[in-house]
């Protein structure tokens, strides 16, 4: 992640503020910064979304392609994640510099979406053992401003919501199977993302913890808990990162906070997505011009 250098005095200032539930920019410990979201930006993709949270800017694109299902899950489609850190975010990401971070984010996304009850892969299957839809979800980091995991998961969920997979008709003709993909842009199958998880990162600073850490707060925290939470407060994956250690009591606290915040985040995300869809063609696309 883009590192910011803080002096000891600044770190102590942030720690004391967090203990009193007042962060550097005036937020409470469980408040998110202002989030801007837009879907359907890229016409080349099956679904796309761009999320901007303060300085963090992430673009997610989904491309649906036909392929064969994996042999151990013959009647399920596949979801493949790929994360790319653009050099525009920080010059450190030039060439292969951002690969470690990209792999980390990709792995966490894969693991959180691996839960069968949160994302229905069977809807992506066309012919069991032979043909299925593979959704390639590509995440592009345009700018780093702290809290990359949360924003990436919001962008992925929004892009999946925006995805419109063309309907396929299967016809069997003397043992030969033919797939006909509909050309009609309105004859589409939507992806069910109501119970898809969102990642919530809870950072431990001093004796208390915060959600949605800015770059400076990330530099002060020693341990982070990254959890995938669905709107029904189900936790699909938890991972602890950082060199500090957590005792079980604070672990329990952080998980409760994460579940609470995750439920709210999911709910407001779905509300905004539905609102955006409702506005339909009346909405003026902002794109990248702002």
């Amino acid at each position, binding site marked *: 992640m883009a590192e910011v250098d803080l002096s000891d005095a600044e770190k102590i200032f942030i720690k004391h503020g967090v203990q009193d539930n007042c962060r550097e920019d005036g937020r409470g410990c469980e408040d998110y910064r202002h989030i801007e979201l837009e879907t359907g930006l890229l016409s080349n993709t099956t679904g796309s979304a761009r999320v901007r949270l303060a300085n963090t800017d992430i673009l997610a694109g989904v491309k649906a392609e036909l392929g064969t299902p994996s042999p151990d899950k013959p009647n399920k489609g596949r979801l493949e994640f790929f994360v790319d850190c653009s050099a525009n975010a920080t010059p450190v990401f030039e060439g292969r510099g951002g690969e470690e971070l990209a792999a980390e984010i990709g792995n966490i996304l894969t693991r959180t979406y691996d839960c069968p009850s949160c994302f229905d892969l069977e809807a992506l299957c066309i012919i069991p053992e032979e043909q299925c839809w593979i959704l*390639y979800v*590509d995440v*592009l980091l345009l700018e780093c401003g702290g809290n990359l995991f949360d924003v990436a998961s919001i962008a992925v969920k929004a892009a999946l919501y925006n995805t419109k997979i063309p309907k396929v008709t299967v016809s069997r003709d003397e043992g030969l199977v033919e797939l006909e993909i509909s050309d009609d842009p309105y004859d589409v199958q939507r992806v069910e993302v109501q119970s898809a998880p969102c990642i919530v990162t809870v950072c431990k600073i001093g004796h208390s913890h915060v959600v949605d850490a800015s770059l400076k707060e990330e530099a002060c925290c020693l341990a982070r808990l990254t959890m995938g939470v669905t709107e029904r407060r189900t936790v699909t994956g938890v991972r602890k990162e950082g060199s500090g250690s957590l005792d079980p009591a604070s672990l329990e606290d952080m998980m409760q906070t994460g579940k609470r915040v995750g439920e709210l985040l999911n709910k407001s995300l779905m509300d905004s997505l539905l609102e955006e869809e409702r506005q339909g063609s009346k909405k003026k696309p902002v794109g990248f011009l702002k």
Partner: protein
Amino acid sequence: LVNCQYSMATFSTSERKRRPRGDRKSQEMTMHLQQTFNAAILTSLHPRSQIDIFVEVLQSDGGNYCASVNAATLAVIDAGIPMKDYVCACSASYLGDSPIVDINYLEESSGSPEITVAVLPKSEQIVFLEMNGRLHEDNLSKVVDMAVKGCKDVYGVLDRTVREHVSQVGSSLET
């Protein structure tokens, strides 16, 4: 020293691209961008410094090089780095029996010849010229002229935008 990197998002082309950067085409594009901007940026005014230009293609429908050069020109101007002149790029081709300007992906892949030109508009000096395909020499000057005219049109748009932006920023500073 001018350092460039050209990278394409995996979802930018209609066929999903596996590697954003590092493959041969991207490296060739990087070198071309570096050559173009080395000619235009006054590097002597920034000795012992490196100027990084990172281009990220979000969606591609032909004319990648041209769009990259035009965008990078605006970025360099926004950064306040002195250049000899704007660098504007445009592509042109010869299809049927008429020259066409600014070709898209379908036209690029149809096998017709393609000429990409980057010029410094005021002095009409060509900084970069590349041609793919087979073109009869009688048609060459027509197509190149078409591309240079396209560049001048692009220059008009870029210049107008830069002046608008500067006047906006200037007026908001005064208040």
